[in-house]
């Protein structure tokens, strides 16, 4: 294992670069896993503050997993096993439209179905699937982010897709 360049991260420029690298991913991860109502932004901030307070003990190559673990635990502390519902954003009314009102209605209903179906996925499936579909991340990137194998990511995402389609058909 290569020796990390810095054996700790008590350095503001290093800390800043870590923040820029991980903050957004961490935020999205928390959002897809736990939903918006638990305020992932605050948890990201808290996790980074904790990272700074413990900066002497954490080598830079361990910072990512420290951040993800800490933020995940903060979330779990706050709301044990709350059902996660990701609210879809309202479709923005377009200024021009030649879509019929029927079509708009159907669209809305479809989205509501998906919303329920997503809530029924497991945490692991939902997180991986949304990072892949919404954020456009490839399997390998997700695997690195979650510290799991590419194979596992593949399984989770494909499983999520299958389950979503089944649920939507049923509803």
């Amino acid at each position, binding site marked *: 294992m290569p020796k990390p360049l810095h054996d700790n991260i008590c350095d503001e420029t290093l800390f800043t670069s870590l923040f820029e690298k991980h*903050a957004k991913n961490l935020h*999205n991860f928390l959002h897809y896993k736990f939903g918006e109502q638990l305020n992932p932004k605050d948890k990201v901030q808290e996790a980074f503050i904790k990272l700074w307070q413990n900066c002497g003990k954490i080598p830079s190559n361990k910072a990512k997993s420290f951040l993800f673990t800490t933020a995940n635990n903060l979330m779990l502390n706050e709301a044990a096993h709350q059902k996660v519902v990701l609210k879809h954003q309202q479709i923005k009314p377009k200024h021009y439209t030649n879509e019929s009102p029927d079509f708009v209605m159907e669209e809305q209903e479809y989205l509501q179905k*998906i919303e329920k179906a997503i809530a029924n996925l497991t945490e692991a499936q939902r997180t991986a699937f949304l990072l892949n579909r919404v954020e456009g991340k490839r399997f390998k990137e997700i695997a690195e982010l979650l510290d799991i194998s590419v194979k596992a990511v593949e399984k989770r*995402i*494909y499983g999520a*897709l299958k389950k979503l*389609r089944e649920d939507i058909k049923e509803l």
Partner: protein
Amino acid sequence: MKREDLIQKWLDHNLTSDELEAFKQLEDYDDLVKLSNSMQHFKAPEYNTSEALSNVMQHINTSKQPPQKKWLSIAMSIAAVFIISFGIYFFTINQDTLVNTQLAEKTTIELPDASSVALNSLSEITFNSHKWNKNRTVDLKGEAFFKVEKGSSFNVNTVYGTVTVYGTQFNVKQRENYFEVICYEGLVGVTYKGNEIKLHAGESFLLLNGKLIEKEKELKTQPSWLNNESYFKSMPYKEVIAEFERQYDVNFHVINLDSSQLFTGSFTHNNIENALKSITLPLHLTYKKTDNTITLKRE
């Protein structure tokens, strides 16, 4: 290429142009794309990295956190706890335990190794319980009966000599001009003026006014005073009186009497009238009791 593989590759954004054409031919292509596109509605809200960073930095800089100082104070409090507890430990470890009995009082104490000591009246025993495992030694003034657990040697220091024990039961009596050791079980060594005398069960060692006195073999299994009785065999009468004074907290006033004549007999510790009769009748003495003073007179 199989349908499943195509979908996997599509999910991984990894289709070649040929594969993409094949994927488009799938019957559920429209469904998949529709589902995938609709996911955009669940996008996480925009995360403003630079704004969040400045928030974090502001938080970090306002909360004073010189970690080293914090560590120093924690280290110092830990050190203080250690110093205080070591202080208490060393103070207590050198403290001797002292047990004594007053006039007309007896007591039994347990030593740290479950050996037991019965203390007769007006006696005192001192030992150090913290060093007991290394050094089984007690200092004795007065009279005591020991039941010693087996183990390393056990010493009883008195002003007249040291008694060394090898797991046994024995009685030590040290009074003014009087030193007696009786071994009831096992083996006892008495060091007197540099010589060690070994006592086997039933044997005794008696030193009276600096003179060694031979005694008959002891047949009892424990000293009589444990049963609240003082027994004497061919003892100078003044020793009997001295013991009486210790057991009943009284003073004797002796008139016209040779206190060195020998006495054989016993007296109880529970009833002063009976006890007085026990020590006076055999010698044809009369006694008169006023408060705490007893006057003895030859008839």
